[in-house]
């Protein structure tokens, strides 16, 4: 873990994050903390039906309520045609986003926004929504992916036809369907591959809808000025993609739109789509005042994008030594009320950890009457890994091969060609699995050191059984675009402006890369996250890209500063710039002349124009990331409750710029994975209504539910980055559900192919197995 610390001065250390004091004192301003003069408060009316046609909306009574200043529906948004926008981290249909923000003609999930009110205070706004009269024609609803794929299923969108990815088929079919997309990958000869196998296992799996669960609900404050300038303050993962969406939905040029980032209380992929900004904007336009919209927890769960529930079928064939000869996956994702689930990524990550000589993947994006799904940390990969890692675990058992050895035998390496055709560059799958093999956890008895158990855990201890499970996972990581500007201050410090909203401490990692390059300390760099008018285009904080891409932009800005400092020193020393160089935080010239960065900075204003460094990045070499997790569980056979005794997560992280935040990403994602495995699910009733739309019953892990999460950072620097950075944030959510299911099998002899493995589900299976 101290690898980077030996090589660098700043990188690899653990400075206090620059925004830390504000966050521990409550001074940091998140989106809902903003108070503008004359600000109105908004509330949204939402559909009580899972599926219905909107026949009419009468807002007159709401408009008449004293204190109400504006009421809007989708009719107040420009009617746009179907248009796909590339928002960097995914393709979005702007018409769909417009209809998710406020429903048009139909509602396709319970909680779907139908109208919005702006009033003098939140209570009046909420009262007003109850006065809006909507005439609905309820329609039959469909909640399950397999049912939605049937020919006789209720159809959500009459204009949806199955779009096959890059297909030669001329017509996509003339019957409306819920199957919006089909992805297909193939490598080698799947039939021959299975024929050559000694053992073939085919298993089916389902996973439930699960939400990102960020603690801060969505918020947006908008001011549509009389001069046509639109300003939106919001907690978002991407100010520039919000600007793009606003431009598309409002049909206003981006020059008229400024998005100001507030601090953000979690995102995980769920705060990329702009649910509230367009609605707040049109309320502001109609009322002539700034308008703030903040969701409550129920709205967040019911009406923002969770990750899809799924049905999967995975078939793997191996020879007698355990080498994979063929692998076939069928994955159907519940896209929710609009097409666009992360099925493309699931289809490409499903077999990515392994060398697959003959492979095939069929992936389907299927509409159902649930909230429209959006990205959740390594979107699609966790579901796919749950299926594959469970099958491999069973294969290992049947062939009597150690599960880690089985993975190592088949591990993808540099040059391995994935089923989608692309070859891997330098990757760390083997190293990560080996790190687990060499870990203290792997070498210890099950449950050793667990806080709930006194002494070593025993297998046959009354009604408790213990077991250990392993799983691996992969995620791509993104590069995309970032920009920074850095100004040298005369006191020897640097003001760094960047556009990557800080969800997890990224300001520090970016500042550290700038500091390292200039040879100054992290504390001597002041990073600020600024609005869309103040910095160059920067893609979202997501996709595990910020430390890589914005860090690279900071590195470029630092090099730019170095060049200018060199020229300035040459001027001061009256020598040739070619005789001056920048080394280790010093500017060194002929005849032993030198300045520290600070000494030269002090002279900048006396010797010429301000020194400003600029840097931008579009580099696309972040490298893929692999994770390998082991977990020890204890199962209570009487209640079905699963206790996590010990959890170790290994990951190839490239260079850990700020190791504490790398550990934090891994620990946070692992615990999200634990919740996904053991408890989290959307529970829908027969009317298609979510019955557990609060944090009481949508049960995410509390700190009492989990132990310390041990992390092993395998630092193989990424050759595709000046400091060896590899994205780290997403992949650690991929293995936990499979690792836990495998551990539960080891403990009880019962395979759990459906998530979540909640106490009632597990108890039911245990009793059936008796």
């Amino acid at each position, binding site marked *: 873990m101290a690898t980077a610390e030996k090589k660098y001065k700043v990188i690899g250390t653990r400075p206090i994050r620059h925004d*830390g004091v504000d966050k521990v004192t409550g001074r940091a301003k998140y989106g809902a903390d903003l108070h503008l003069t004359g600000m109105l408060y908004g509330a949204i009316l939402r559909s009580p039906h899972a599926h219905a046609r909107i026949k009419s909306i009468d807002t007159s009574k709401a408009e008449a309520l*004293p204190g109400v200043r504006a009421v809007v529906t989708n009719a107040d948004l420009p009617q746009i045609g179907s248009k796909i926008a590339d928002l960097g981290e995914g393709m979005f249909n702007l018409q769909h986003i417009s209809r998710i923000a406020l429903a048009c003609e139909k509602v396709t999930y319970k909680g779907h926004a139908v109208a919005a009110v702006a009033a003098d205070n939140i209570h009046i706004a909420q009262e007003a929504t109850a006065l809006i009269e909507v005439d609905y024609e309820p329609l039959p609803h469909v909640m399950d992916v397999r049912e939605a794929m049937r020919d006789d299923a209720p159809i959500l969108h009459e204009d949806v036809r199955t779009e096959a990815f890059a297909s030669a088929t001329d017509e996509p079919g003339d019957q409306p369907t819920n199957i919006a997309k089909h992805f297909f990958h193939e490598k080698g000869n799947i039939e021959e591959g299975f024929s050559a196998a000694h053992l073939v296992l085919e298993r089916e799996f389902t996973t439930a809808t699960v939400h990102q669960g960020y*603690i801060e609900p969505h918020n947006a404050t908008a001011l549509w000025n009389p001069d046509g300038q639109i300003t939106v303050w919001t907690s978002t993962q991407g100010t520039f993609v919000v600007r793009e969406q606003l431009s598309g939905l409002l049909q206003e040029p981006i020059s008229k739109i400024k998005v100001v980032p507030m601090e953000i209380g979690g995102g995980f992929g769920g705060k990329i789509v702009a649910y509230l900004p367009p609605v707040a904007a049109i309320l502001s336009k109609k009322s002539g005042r700034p308008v703030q919209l903040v969701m409550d927890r129920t709205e967040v769960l019911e009406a923002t994008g969770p990750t899809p529930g799924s049905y999967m079928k995975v078939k793997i064939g191996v020879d007698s030594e355990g080498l994979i000869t063929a692998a076939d996956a069928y994955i159907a994702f519940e896209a929710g009320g609009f097409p666009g689930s992360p099925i493309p990524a699931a289809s490409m990550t499903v077999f990515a950890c392994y060398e697959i000589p003959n492979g095939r993947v069929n992936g389907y994006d299927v509409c159902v009457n649930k909230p429209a799904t959006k990205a959740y940390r390594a979107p699609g990969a966790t579901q796919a890994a749950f299926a594959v890692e469970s099958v491999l675990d069973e294969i290992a058992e049947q062939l009597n091969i150690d599960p880690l050895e089985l993975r190592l035998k088949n591990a993808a390496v540099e040059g391995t060609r994935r089923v989608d055709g692309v070859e891997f560059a330098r990757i760390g799958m083997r190293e990560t699995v080996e790190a687990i093999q060499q870990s203290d956890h792997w070498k210890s008895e099950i449950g050793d050191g667990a806080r709930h158990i006194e002494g070593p855990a025993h297998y046959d201890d009354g009604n408790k059984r213990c077991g250990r499970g392993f799983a691996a996972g992969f995620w791509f990581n993104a590069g995309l675009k970032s920009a920074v500007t850095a100004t040298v201050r005369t006191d020897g410090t640097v003001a760094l402006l960047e556009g990557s909203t800080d969800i997890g401490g990224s300001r520090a990692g970016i500042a550290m890369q700038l500091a390292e390059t200039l040879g100054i300390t992290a504390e001597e760099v002041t990073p600020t996250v600024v609005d869309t008018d103040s910095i160059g285009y920067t893609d979202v904080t997501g996709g595990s890209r910020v430390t890589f891409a914005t860090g690279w932009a900071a590195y470029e800005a630092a090099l730019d500063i170095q060049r200018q400092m060199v020229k300035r020193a040459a001027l001061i020393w009256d020598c040739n710039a070619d005789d001056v160089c920048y080394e280790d935080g010093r500017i060194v010239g002929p005849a032993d002349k030198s300045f520290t960065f600070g000494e030269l900075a002090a002279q900048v204003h006396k010797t010429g124009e301000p020194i400003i460094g600029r840097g931008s990045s579009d580099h696309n070499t972040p490298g893929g990331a692999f994770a390998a997790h082991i977990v020890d569980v204890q199962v209570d056979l009487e209640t079905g409750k699963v206790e996590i005794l010990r959890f170790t997560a290994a990951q190839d992280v490239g260079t850990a710029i700020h190791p504490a935040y790398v550990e934090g990403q891994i620990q946070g994602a692992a615990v999200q994975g634990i919740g996904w495995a053991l408890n989290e699910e959307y529970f829908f009733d027969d009317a298609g209504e979510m019955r557990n739309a609060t944090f009481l019953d949508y049960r995410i892990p509390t700190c009492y539910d989990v132990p310390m999460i041990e992390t092993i950072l395998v630092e193989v620097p990424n050759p595709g980055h000046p400091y060896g950075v590899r994205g780290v944030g997403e992949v650690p959510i991929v293995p936990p559900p499979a690792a836990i299911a495998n551990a539960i099998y080891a403990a009880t002899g019962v395979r759990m192919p459906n998530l979540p493995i909640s106490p009632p589900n597990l108890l039911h299976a245990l009793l059936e197995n008796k």
Partner: protein
Amino acid sequence: MSSKRIVTCNINGRPEEFLCQSRQTLLEVLRDVLDMTGTKEGCSNGNCGACTVQFNGRPVDSCLVLAVEANGAEIETIESVAPAEGLDALQNAFLEEAALQCGICTPGFIIQARALLNENPNPTEEEIRFYLAGNLCRCTGYDKIVRAVQAAAQSRMASATT
């Protein structure tokens, strides 16, 4: 519109007087009337602990307290935790241990953890996790939060003996 009531209480050691409607929660008044936005809203129904404040000597979810109930109460919010100079031991520990990522749950955790350490200056890991189970965090996985509370406990005990 229902008429407002006058509430008089003590917030962060200062006498405070405000007007509120019966239907407003203490959380709403703190944030929207008194402009004390350090206390956060995560769930509106007492399940996440982001709105934790100290109320008459106990940590409570302020989203579950009606503002009118605060009449005559002693309330402490995150804004009062730091001393006149510097930071409280818990705040320092959270920073040093990197016990926050997005930071939205942090004020609630600090209020709750301070109540714990005032009651139990040297808690075990089990006791820390149990006491903080009403505060949800989605970013950190809790590991570094627990370590921060342990570190703060040590640091408080060390300075108590000097």
